């Protein structure tokens, strides 16, 4: 691998020709001759899609590879002058947390759920320093203060489940940085968090880095995050480094085709101008409420008002986006509309017929007009059932003959760009993107008037995401189906939606045409969401920064 002009300071870590292979079977290596280095105070982002080997690289540095499955086969990892691949386990154990440390994706699983967080931070000091109990406690409290956790005394005494996701990640960062290591590896540390929390954590990592002059290896799939925090970028694909360069050069003038594709697949935050649709409404929701009640023994029942007074109208051929952070009630709205939850109040009108007034049989007939595409394509197809049988399940429920349904399934397979032979196979023989196409095709089998897509592209890599979004766009043109598109991702919403509803705490806070809501948000909450979106100053499609952005 050719290195670009080496940073002038002594690098903290140098990875040279690192290869990692599977222990069993001599397939191609998982990581193939990867090399890069990081200087003190520098942030290097490793980007790549799932399966590119970016996490395996990070785990190799930390010495955390699962030795029964993966093993380094070549190269060296120099931390200072010490080769980590040849270091003894005891030595590695000492180096971890004193000279290098790691922050993981899911803060809940990274912390021990049955121990107070104060003790968990202190454990690092107990193992790696000679401080006495009082000193340890003081140091821990000071560190909690440094990461801007409110009321450190209370946090010290809290269990992980009593903290929010962002607070937990702050605690994890505390543990990682309390001994001021030279190298911090962050493996998708903000992927599980909401955008506003993500922004705070990114700021915190940057701040701590400046304070301690830490070298940061930041693993992410999100180009927006890269645009915000990276100094240099390593692009990986299929276990190899495709391109290493300064952030500016990568984002402005990527030399490799794959990098170009990766960057230009990131949807713009600025919606395209769309012609207002003048079609008839297919779905009207009026005053929808959903309250979850939980009976408790000898105490008043607990209530969660998940959705309050939501009204919306979806037209033929329209894609209506519902955006909001986790817990905003957007998924509950979707589940009420498709009938997976019973609304507490409100009416749902499908193609001019009121759902709540219909009898059971009529209701079932009306329900078939609303179909759903789920978030996780790995779980929404029954692994034991062939694709063909899954596809015809809907029509045969409503009395269509198997042969006719199979024929229709074959046509829809062609529509979503898969061969008809796919019908004879099992779900595990397809990739995530292909499965999501199958799920879209299955939903279309019943010729619905409304398609509800609940975070339907959130689990997919950007390039695959783009393909599925294009497919949805084509489908609404071709079949005239109205799509209710639930997402937390403003970029995806801007890319595909005609109109947007913004939800917060179960209520709609703002709604209107996409270009209106996203370009000129009126409500403070929408503005906050928009400002937290990573990489909002960058126009990835056209490889240039956005100038004169007033948002």
């Amino acid at each position, binding site marked *: 691998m050719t290195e670009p002009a080496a940073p002038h300071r002594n690098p903290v870590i140098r990875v040279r020709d690192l290869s990692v292979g599977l222990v069993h079977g001599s397939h191609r290596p998982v990581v193939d001759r990867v090399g890069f280095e990081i200087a003190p105070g520098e942030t290097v982002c490793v980007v790549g899609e799932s399966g590119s080997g970016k996490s395996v690289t990070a785990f190799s540095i930390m010495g955390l590879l699962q030795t029964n499955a993966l093993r380094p086969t070549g190269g060296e990892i120099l931390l200072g002058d010490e080769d980590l691949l040849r270091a003894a386990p005891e030595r590695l154990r000492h180096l971890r947390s004193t000279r290098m440390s790691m922050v993981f994706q899911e803060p809940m699983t990274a912390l021990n759920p049955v121990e107070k967080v104060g003790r968990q931070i202190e454990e690092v000091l107990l193992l790696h320093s000679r401080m006495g109990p009082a000193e340890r406690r003081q140091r821990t409290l000071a560190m909690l203060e440094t990461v801007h956790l409110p009321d450190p005394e209370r946090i010290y005494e809290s269990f992980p489940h009593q903290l929010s996701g962002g607070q937990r990640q702050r605690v994890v960062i505390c543990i990682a940085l309390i001994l001021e290591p030279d190298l911090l590896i962050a493996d998708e540390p903000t992927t599980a968090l909401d955008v506003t929390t993500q922004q705070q954590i990114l700021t915190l990592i940057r701040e701590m880095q400046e304070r301690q002059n830490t070298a940061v290896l930041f693993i992410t799939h999100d180009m927006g995050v890269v645009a915000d925090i990276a100094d240099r970028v390593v692009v990986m694909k299929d276990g190899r480094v495709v391109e290493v360069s300064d952030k500016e050069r990568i984002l402005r003038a990527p030399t490799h085709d794959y990098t170009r594709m990766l960057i230009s697949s990131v949807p713009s935050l600025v919606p395209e101008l769309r012609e207002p649709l003048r079609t008839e409404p297919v779905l009207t929701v009026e005053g929808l409420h959903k309250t979850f009640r939980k009976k408790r023994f000898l105490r008043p029942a607990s209530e969660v008002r998940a959705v309050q007074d939501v009204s919306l109208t979806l037209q033929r051929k329209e894609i209506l986006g519902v955006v909001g952070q986790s817990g905003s009630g957007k998924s509950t709205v979707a589940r009420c509309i*498709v*009938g*997976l939850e019973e609304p507490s109040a409100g009416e749902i009108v499908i193609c001019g017929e009121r759902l709540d007034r219909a009898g059971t049989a009529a209701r*079932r007939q009306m*329900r*078939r007009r*609303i*179909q*759903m595409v*789920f*978030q*996780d394509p790995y*779980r*929404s*197809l*029954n*692994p*034991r*059932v*062939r694709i*063909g*049988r899954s596809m015809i*399940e*809907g029509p045969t*429920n*409503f009395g269509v003959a*198997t*042969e006719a349904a*199979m*024929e*229709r*399934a*074959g*046509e829809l397979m*062609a529509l979503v760009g898969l*061969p*008809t*032979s796919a*019908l*004879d*196979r*099992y779900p*595990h*023989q397809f990739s995530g993107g292909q499965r999501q196409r199958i*799920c879209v095709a*299955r939903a279309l*089998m*019943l010729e619905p008037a409304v398609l509800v897509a609940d975070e339907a592209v959130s689990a997919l890599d950007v390039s695959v995401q783009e393909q599925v979004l294009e497919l949805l766009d084509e489908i609404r043109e071709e079949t005239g189906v109205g799509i209710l598109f639930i997402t937390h991702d403003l970029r995806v919403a801007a890319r595909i939606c005609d109109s947007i509803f913004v939800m917060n705490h179960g209520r709609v806070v703002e709604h209107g045409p996409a270009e209106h809501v996203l370009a000129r948000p009126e409500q403070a909450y929408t503005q906050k969401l928009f400002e937290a979106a990573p990489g909002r100053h960058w126009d990835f499609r056209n490889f240039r920064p956005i100038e004169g952005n007033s948002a």
Partner: protein
Amino acid sequence: MKISAPSDAAGGCAHEDAQPSRRRLILRHLLRAFGTGPALVALVILLLVVLMALFAPLLATADPIAIAPAERLSGSSANHPLGTDAYGRDIYSRVLYGARVSLIVGAGAALVSVAIGLVIGVLAGYFPAVDSVIMRTMDGVMAIPSILLAIALISLTGASLMTVMVAITIPEIPRVVRLVRSVILNVRSEAYVEAAVTLGSPVRRILMRHMVPNTIAPLIVQGTFVFASAILTEATLSFLGAGLPTEIPSWGNIMSEGRSYFQLFPGLVLWPGIALALTLLSVNVLGDVLRDTLDPKMAKRT
């Protein structure tokens, strides 16, 4: 564009060879698992016991219930390879016939408890309305020690093969119900089950196609454990004298009768005891191997 759609699902079998189905993969795993080590030994032992039971009339050297006072408590001889008991009955033949009772009781209890438990468990798991009623009833059954319950049932109805089987099966049912219920509760929230709901599938189809198949692997494993524990319970009941009448030879009652002469003629207890221990061990080993193979977490390794 429009390629002729495959109109029959069966036409797809040609693809099978290139891309093995899940079922074939499991079968391959099973064959590999049973082809070696303790599993193979267990399989052979169990096969021998089954053959013993099937061909007992051919293999036996004497009528297992024929009393011969003249030959009581004799040692090993040409006529009686393992000697005779206090009534002069042939131990070897009695152990052979005892295998029949053990296997019938074991298999019967396993099949019936799994079948009943599956139905009740699915009801409890899928219909919240009946869940608490069913589960509290099951808790009630589980609160009574199974041997006590069996003894009580037998003393109410009198001992016969049928009543002993019923008495052994009933205490096993709650365990199966709990297992099935937990599987169903887990699968309920799977996206593919919710997808079936939105596709308008009737409850029967959702249960049969999407939920029940998930219970089969754990049920097979649970079945083997019920099988082993039923054999043991039957032997215990017979040993305590609450089980089958002595004219039906079972490993338990052979040992029960032999125990007073144990110091003089240890074979009276030893031979049926060895048969019982080997059978139980084999069944349990097979259960473990099945669990390791059918457990999806283990299957992921390859």
